[in-house]
């Protein structure tokens, strides 16, 4: 530890750490727009500049290592003026449409302008005339609002190994976009939406489905059905002012009903169903020498990534559809039949922590007779907005129970919301499928937690099953390269596109930070600890659906409704 002086006060700092880290630890606020935790500093925005005695220029605290006895002024008039001017410069090249901007309440640029006290338009001049890209089913890109902080570029490349976008051009004509400024839809973008989450402005937002959903909700002919993903109930309260760490499963059901949804189902149900199908598939592959390691297919960003980057490993993907698509298919088949509803009169909406699910819902594989299995996908953020529009506050909702049978779940299905959850649920049921017994200890500690790469070996009565769990596609890429190079020991790999899983998905609240993700994960584990039905194969509703409709896992009807196959995909990459 060394001593430095900040704003005339002695402060302890770790040797060689960046000044910004020290300041944050001390609770001294210095604004920044381009800083990303855990990645090397970019130094692009210059907003974190501070005055350091003996240095002729202001220094950027994000990329300036501390040294003993340095004297720092973080809010000197000179530093404040520089920051304010930088914001004014950004505003001079920014569309003046805050009133219409999706990010108006979460826009860092607007908030910083407020913080700096920008009250006049000091610089006028030409603004860049860039075109909006609405080609992607998941993400809308508006380069005119981009401040070139580069966070999206770095997330996309360094965390997700996709690199669909980069800086193009130079100087004032620089922008962020795919190669040849093509649409995102033909690029290698996997629609994960991590870029949206780090974007400080409205330059990257989700492709909203709110209008369509509103239309359906107002159509008296339509039965509007909702399903909500495991990660939604552990997150949603944050968008209504709660601190991370409150589960609102029951209130969420009530909220959806009050919004006008005729039925409310739970994607965790189809997660249990996925375990039945995928677990059976895994057992089948192990017993019959099928392609191993088998890889999960719950995460649509990941699937597209394999299609375009590792097409040779497509046979390793499980043939199971994702829980969203399984439930979508069941709603318009099993449920419609059972209730005597014309499937074309069902409007199926899923609430997802994910933007890639919008892309997945539009895949041609997932519609039958011209009817999409899932008609619209709302992100966590969009759901909160819909609620605000109706003046509904989550806190006022008396908890209710979801509709049956597609609304009942085990806690194993719920675990799907975090990295390792699919694996844990699958191992519990695979053990049962292979041995007829349940594990003594259901909790599989080795696959829990936020680590990007987790590996474990499970002894299933002498059969040693080797599994790996990765989240974040860069981690997946490394593992896949190993498999491609001939790594043979693994049986089963769980991949979630977003780091930490769906609780950190691209459709989650913009404000999400590492602490929030930890809290959400903790909630999932708490639910699993506290409830009694903890095994997918013990979910009564799942058993009922097999009895009444599907027959058994991997049955012909299952194959038709719950499985699919994927082909190599050509993209501009």
């Amino acid at each position, binding site marked *: 530890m060394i001593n430095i002086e900040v704003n005339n006060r002695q402060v302890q700092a770790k040797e060689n750490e960046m000044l910004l880290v020290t300041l944050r630890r001390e609770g001294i606020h210095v604004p920044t727009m381009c800083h990303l935790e855990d990645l090397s500093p970019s130094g692009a925005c210059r907003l974190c500049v501070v005055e350091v005695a003996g240095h002729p220029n202001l220094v950027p605290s994000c990329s300036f290592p501390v040294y003993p006895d340095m004297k720092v002024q973080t809010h000197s008039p000179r530093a404040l003026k520089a920051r304010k001017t930088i914001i004014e410069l950004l505003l001079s090249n920014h569309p003046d449409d805050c009133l219409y901007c999706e990010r108006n309440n979460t826009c860092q640029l607007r908030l910083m302008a407020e913080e700096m006290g920008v009250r006049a338009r000091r610089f006028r001049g030409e603004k860049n005339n860039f075109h909006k890209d609405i080609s992607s089913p998941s993400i809308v890109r508006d380069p005119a609002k981009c401040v070139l902080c580069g966070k999206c570029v770095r997330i996309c*490349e360094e965390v997700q190994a996709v690199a669909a976008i980069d800086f193009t*051009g*130079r100087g004032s004509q620089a922008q962020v*976009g795919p*190669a040849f400024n093509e649409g995102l839809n033909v690029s*290698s973008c996997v629609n994960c939406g991590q870029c949206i989450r780090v974007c400080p402005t409205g330059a990257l937002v989700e492709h909203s489905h709110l209008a369509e959903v509103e239309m359906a909700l107002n159509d008296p002919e339509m039965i509007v059905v909702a399903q909500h993903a495991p990660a939604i109930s552990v997150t949603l309260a944050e968008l209504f002012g709660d601190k991370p760490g409150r589960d609102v499963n029951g209130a969420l059901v009530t909220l959806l009903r009050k919004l006008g949804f005729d039925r409310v189902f739970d994607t965790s149900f189809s997660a249990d169903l996925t375990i039945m199908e995928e677990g059976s598939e895994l057992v089948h592959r192990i017993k019959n020498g099928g392609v191993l390691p088998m890889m999960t297919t719950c995460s649509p960003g990941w699937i597209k990534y394999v299609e375009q980057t590792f097409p040779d490993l497509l046979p390793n993907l499980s043939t199971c559809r994702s829980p969203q698509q399984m439930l979508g298919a069941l709603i318009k088949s099993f449920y419609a039949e059972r209730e005597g509803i014309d499937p074309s009169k069902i409007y199926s909406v899923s609430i997802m922590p994910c933007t890639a699910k919008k892309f997945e819902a539009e895949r041609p594989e997932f519609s039958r007779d011209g009817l999409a299995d899932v008609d619209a996908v709302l992100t966590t953020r969009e759901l909160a907005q819909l609620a605000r529009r109706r003046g509904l506050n989550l806190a006022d909702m008396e908890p209710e129970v979801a509709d049956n049978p597609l609304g009942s779940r085990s806690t194993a299905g719920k675990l799907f919301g975090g990295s390792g959850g699919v694996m844990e649920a699958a191992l519990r049921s695979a053990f049962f499928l292979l041995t007829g017994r349940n594990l003594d200890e259901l909790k599989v500690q080795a696959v829990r937690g936020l680590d990007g790469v987790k590996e474990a070996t499970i002894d299933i009565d002498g059969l040693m099953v080797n599994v790996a769990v990765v989240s974040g596609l860069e981690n997946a890429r490394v593992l896949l390269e190993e498999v491609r190079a001939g790594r043979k020991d693994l049986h089963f790999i769980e991949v979630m596109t977003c780091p930490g899983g769906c609780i950190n998905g691209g459709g989650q609240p913009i404000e999400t930070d590492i602490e929030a993700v930890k809290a959400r994960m903790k909630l999932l584990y708490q639910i699993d600890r506290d409830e009694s039905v903890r095994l997918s194969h013990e979910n009564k509703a799942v058993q009922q659906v097999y009895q009444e409709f599907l027959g058994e896992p991997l049955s012909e009807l299952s194959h038709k409704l719950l499985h699919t196959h994927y082909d190599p995909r050509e993209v501009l*990459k």
Partner: protein
Amino acid sequence: MSAPLTDIQPILDRYPNASRDALIPLLQDVQEVQGFISKETVVSIGKHLNLPASKIYGVATFYNQFRFQPLGRYHVQICRGTACHVKGSATIFETLKRELGIEAGETARDGQFSLEVVACLGACGLAPLICVNGKFHGNVTGDSVRKILRAYRKEAKKEATNE
């Protein structure tokens, strides 16, 4: 007009097992033979170097040297260095634009002339200066530029009738 592009595989073969630092030389070599950088080029180089297309496009658009459209038969470069500027290259530039009917960075529709502004050709002793297909023309005036262009037009015409 659009001749089939030369195969770039031989160029790629000159860089076996190359890594990213070969990107700019590769782009330069390809542009040398093809005249510009095409989408196909970007994809093939990407496969060769195992680099995403977005990165290659990002690099190519960063540097002045790379073009995404074919050049005209005569590539006119006007030096806009300091020495040329103080000796009146702004007026020369205006004259060129007017005579050729194109803006900087454009190629005339008949494919005869392209006009490019370069930061400095490094022959400041000859300012103001233009360069056509690698040949320097120093100490130019509005009139001499017109004369130079006329000569190239004539040459092109002659070649056309001979063909």
